[in-house]
């Protein structure tokens, strides 16, 4: 974990409510795709945890949905503004069990952390398949970005306005060796049930600190109590314990 100032390079709309922000700063604390940053904002007491969509040595990309006071403040920020970030939070995805044909499954604003994961897997020579689920055509983002990486991309929409009609579980490839998922909990649960292969899922919870100190985001797993922020947000399928 590292606390440092990042400067906003760009902040642009991808859809009506999803924005992409590129920041410049020290990303040395980030060690794996699927980690997150925790952003301090004016007048708001708690930091806002946002997953890392992409990063290199000096830049960081976050893709966020505007849902409340914190993300509304982010949307209004012009390039040049500085933000106080905690970086390198969470465990991130483990690439080692991916096999030759991993599938990445993203739902809505759960899609962003899969982008850098796809980059890493492709760099390892994997044939990466991506299934992205959205509610409707106007909410789709990053389809072309995944294609540009060389991924085989399938899109589903709940209302059928684009791609396959229905949920991501209806479009899962049969030859996948391993899965990586991020999205709303009902989607994760459906993926868990629909897959015979092993995989990893990224979870969300309201957090206090984001770095393991407050025990605000604990969950029960088959391997004990875990903090979503520190021991997660990524869990292995085999350890997940769904709460009733």
């Amino acid at each position, binding site marked *: *974990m590292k606390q440092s100032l990042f400067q906003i390079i760009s902040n642009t709309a991808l859809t009506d409510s999803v924005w992409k922000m590129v920041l410049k700063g020290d990303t040395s604390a980030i060690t794996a795709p699927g980690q997150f940053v925790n952003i301090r904002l004016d007048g708001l007491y708690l930091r806002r945890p946002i997953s890392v969509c992409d990063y290199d040595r000096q830049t960081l990309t976050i893709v966020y949905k505007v849902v409340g006071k914190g993300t509304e403040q982010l949307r209004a920020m012009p390039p040049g503004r500085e933000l106080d970030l905690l970086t390198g939070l969470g465990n991130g995805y483990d690439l080692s069990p991916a096999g030759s044909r991993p599938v990445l499954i993203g739902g809505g604003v759960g899609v962003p952390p899969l982008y850098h994961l796809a980059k890493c897997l492709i760099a390892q020579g994997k044939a990466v398949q991506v299934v992205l689920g959205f509610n409707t055509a106007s909410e789709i983002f990053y389809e072309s970005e995944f294609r540009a990486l060389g991924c085989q991309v399938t899109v589903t929409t709940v209302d059928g306005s684009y791609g396959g009609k229905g949920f991501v579980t209806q479009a899962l490839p049969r030859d996948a060796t391993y899965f990586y998922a991020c999205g709303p909990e009902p989607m994760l649960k459906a993926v868990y049930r629909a897959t015979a292969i092993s995989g990893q899922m990224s979870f969300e919870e*309201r957090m*206090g*600190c984001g*770095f393991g*100190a407050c*025990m605000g985001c604990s969950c*029960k797993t088959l391997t004990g109590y875990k903090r979503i922020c*520190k021991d997660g947000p990524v869990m292995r399928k085999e350890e997940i314990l769904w709460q009733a």
Partner: protein
Amino acid sequence: MASMNVSLCGIPLDNPVIPASGTFGYGYEFAELYDINILGTFSFKGTTKDPRFGNPTPRIAECTSGMINAVGLQNPGVEKVIAEELPRLKACFHKPVMANVSGFSVEDYAYTCQKLDKEPQVGWLEVNVSCPNVHGGGMSFGTAPEAAAEVTRAVKAVTAKPVIIKLSPNVTDIVSIAKACEEAGADGISLINTLLGMRIDLRTRRPVIANTMGGFSGPAIFPVALRMVWQVSQAVKIPVIGMGGISSAEDVIEMMLAGAAAVEVGAANLINPYACRDILNALPGVMKAYGIEHLNDIIGGARNG
């Protein structure tokens, strides 16, 4: 040269800044960021007799200048704390540490304190009779003078270490409870624990916190904490540790002027993991600005003249 030394129940502290229980784990997350040996001491995560998962999530809600938590004393239980957490703590912190203890019966408190009494690194036992987030225990011992005194007596009977009773602000008369603890043998008082609060989500029209209510902390509660430290420190002869919303060197000095012999810093650690380091770095300059040579000299200073 500004001197920050104080003494807490006979044990010297290099400075009065103490991260509060539940906001600092067992220290090692923060030891990754800075040398936590610069702290006076710290109070580690509240420990109970048995392991506890705590409350369902969401456990956290944001407030104006503060937050609500309803963690519910999640901890691995005193045996595991001693076997697994204290060795890790010892590897990164080399001073006497404060053990925070909670319970659901008088016997629970005594059991846990007796175990922790045998740990050489534990300098003080901070007995939490004020957790608002558990049922049938915690705060119920801290809301009546006789119940708080009973816990105090039971703990004092099993330990030779200084016993500090951590009090709840969710009472009508905190002074009478503090006095009852002092009469029962407490060596110190720490206050305040969190204020009972709640938030409602406008979208779902349901409480944000799964447990409905939780403990409100952060800068918003500082004036309430300061007032209670002022009242209690004048009513008892034992040292008072002041806490509640402290997030700057100025807050530390203000709390000590109100009567605190030392201070605990809680929620600030969660927002800025360097909060205590930053406060310590700022203290000498702020002391100089206000003409303070020895922090020890200003304890209760607002009462004079």
